[in-house]
């Protein structure tokens, strides 16, 4: 994965020079160690600003919505699945896109590394399997597999699902991952335990809606929380309103969420909001055998009806 | 300031605009509410919220205040279902006003369109009550059709009185008895506006498209940008310049505006 960048720049330069695309969406170096910043490149001579490392966490599909240009876009497994979502939901046209596939072995979780390092990180380096961080006169090396983002660690679609170019060899998919261990643990709780569990994790929510805004699925012109006629949910930080928001947001992502982790990454309070969306992912998988963003020609389960759909709880 | 709804008049045939006449519950509030034409106030409906609306009555009309309210959002929709006698609130007056200190002794042409005519009505009534303080007064007012004109009875009365030049226009009509102009406001402005003069001021208030197309007309006529006065609109909440949303550059439309000369607007970032 470490060597992708030459190929990324080469492909981008070619696409821009031959005017096959108006812009390439990728990542550039961040101002902080272990950070990259999503960016666009419009001129072939600027492609060298593009970078690639294990900090390219952001889901670039979030930047495609309603764009009119022809776009080259770098896509990991999750990005490509969200691009497919956009195609299915008519948010962008396939002809507009040149998907530059980047088979992914998972992105590093900066929060985990910072926590385990226990110091402010001043410098960062990585090799194929390891990362090394320095700061405060201390240096520490981690195995990448130990510090992946949680959603990357349990990812079973690391290769781009759809692509026009490929910047590296396809990687082996993880087959034996248990994606829903945490969900089952909650499912096993009794009803009040469940309630209190979520009451606790949502107690720090500041209702900034960062999870929604960062989500590549959340593109409604007016979100239900912003509606005033009628007003579905109160705008203060009352726990009942907060929970209503999280519950409904998750439900709006049912059958669409690719577990890209954008919501949790954006949450300034580190609330594990994926616990909601993953539950719905699990239900969709178990009830309808569905995983989102794998096929641009297939409608998602919640907007189709089949006579043999399981009728859960319908009397 | 608590007020009671004293009268509700449906202004337009699409029933989207109603004029509310409020009387203050407390006499002291009435005395404290000293406004000038061009200002606005926040109308408050408990349980729904507040909405910033231009004051349609002139300070010379005593004992009540009037607001013309377009049915759009949560509060205005609710207001359209309220009845005479209902209690609500007014917070104001807020914002600045048309520069009456400057306008005295000058020619004034008022150019308005659609339902943005309410503070212009206040201005006209105010000027008529102080008619000797102003030189020539012209009013160019247009709407899409005759049924959408606000204050039709008053328009007719002003026209009949003859001490101001009234130029009413509609974009189009199939009414054979329509006796006024037909054409867009910019076109009528071109024909009817008085010639530019350092002593002639234009007050322009209307939908963005009207303002955009009237501007070149006034430029052609030679109006200096200091002599063109605009009134702006923004989403507002506090009305006193502290909640942060209605700024253009370092000016808050609710407090430093809504009235700006075009010259001032030219020196502000283009976020209108």
């Amino acid at each position: 994965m470490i060597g992708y960048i030459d190929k990324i720049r080469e492909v981008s330069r070619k696409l821009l020079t031959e005017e096959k695309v108006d812009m390439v969406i990728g990542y550039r170096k961040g101002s902080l160690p272990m950070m990259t910043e999503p960016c666009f490149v419009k001129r072939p001579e600027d492609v060298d600003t593009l970078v690639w490392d294990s900090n390219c966490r952001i889901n670039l599909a979030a930047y495609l919505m309603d764009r009119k240009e022809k776009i080259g876009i770098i896509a990991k497994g999750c990005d490509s699945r969200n691009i497919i979502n956009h195609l299915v939901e008519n948010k962008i046209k396939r002809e507009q896109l040149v998907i530059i596939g980047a088979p992914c072995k998972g992105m590093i979780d900066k929060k985990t590394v910072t926590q385990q390092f226990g110091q402010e990180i001043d410098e960062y380096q990585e090799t194929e399997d390891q990362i090394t961080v320095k700061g405060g006169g201390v240096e520490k090396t981690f195995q990448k597999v130990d510090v992946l983002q949680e959603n990357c660690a349990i990812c079973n679609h690391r290769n781009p699902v759809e692509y026009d170019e490929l910047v590296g060899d396809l990687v082996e998919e993880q087959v034996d991952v248990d994606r829903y261990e945490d969900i089952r643990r909650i499912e096993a709780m009794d009803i009040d335990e469940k309630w209190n569990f979520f009451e606790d994790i949502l107690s720090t929510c500041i209702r900034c809606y960062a999870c929604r805004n960062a989500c590549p699925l959340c593109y409604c012109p007016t979100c239900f929380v912003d509606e005033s006629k009628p007003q579905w949910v109160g705008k203060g930080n009352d726990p009942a309103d907060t929970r209503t928001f999280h519950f409904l947001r998750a439900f709006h992502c049912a059958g669409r969420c690719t577990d890209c982790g954008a919501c949790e990454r954006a949450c300034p309070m580190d609330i594990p909001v994926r616990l909601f969306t993953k539950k719905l992912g699990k239900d969709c998988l178990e009830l309808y055998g569905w995983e989102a963003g794998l096929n641009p020609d297939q409608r998602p389960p919640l907007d189709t009806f089949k006579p043999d759909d399981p009728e859960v709880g319908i009397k | 300031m608590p007020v009671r709804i004293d009268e509700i008049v449906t202004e337009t045939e699409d029933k989207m605009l109603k004029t509310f006449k409020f009387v203050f519950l407390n006499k002291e509030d009435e005395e404290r509410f000293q406004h000038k034409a061009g200002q606005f106030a926040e109308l408050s409906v408990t349980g729904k919220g507040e909405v910033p609306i231009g004051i349609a009555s002139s300070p010379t009309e005593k004992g009540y205040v009037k607001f013309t309210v377009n049915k759009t959002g949560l509060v205005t929709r609710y207001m359209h279902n309220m009845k005479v006698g209902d209690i609500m609130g007014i917070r104001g007056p807020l914002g600045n006003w048309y520069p009456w200190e400057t306008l005295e002794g000058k020619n004034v042409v008022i150019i308005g369109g659609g339902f943005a005519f309410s503070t212009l009505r206040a201005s006209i009534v105010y000027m008529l009550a102080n008619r000797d303080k102003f030189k020539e007064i012209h009013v160019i007012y247009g709407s899409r059709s005759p049924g959408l004109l606000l204050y039709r009875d008053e328009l007719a009365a002003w026209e009949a009185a003859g001490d101001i030049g009234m130029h009413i226009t509609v974009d189009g009509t199939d009414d054979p008895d329509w006796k006024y102009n037909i054409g867009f406001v910019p076109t009528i402005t071109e024909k009817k506006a008085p010639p530019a003069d350092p002593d002639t001021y234009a007050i322009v208030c209307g939908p963005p498209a009207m303002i955009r197309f009237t501007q070149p007309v006034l430029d052609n006529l030679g109006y200096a940008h200091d002599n063109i006065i605009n009134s702006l609109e923004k989403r507002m909440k506090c009305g006193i310049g502290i909640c942060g949303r209605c700024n253009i550059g370092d000016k808050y439309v609710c407090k430093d505006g809504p009235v700006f000369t075009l010259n001032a607007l030219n020196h502000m970032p283009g976020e209108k």
Partner: protein
Amino acid sequence: MGNLLEYMGIERDRLHFSWVSSAEASKFITVVKEVTASVKALGPAKKFVKDRRQVS
């Protein structure tokens, strides 16, 4: 929806789904009886209830 509500800690029996045609009067009665009975059995909802917010 029921799944997610239950997952969050809302009693399953507070939410019911049913298909009832306009011609199925007796089914409608049965369903309503069932719903009211199961909700009554649960008692008043204590979750998702908004208290008067505290004044700070």
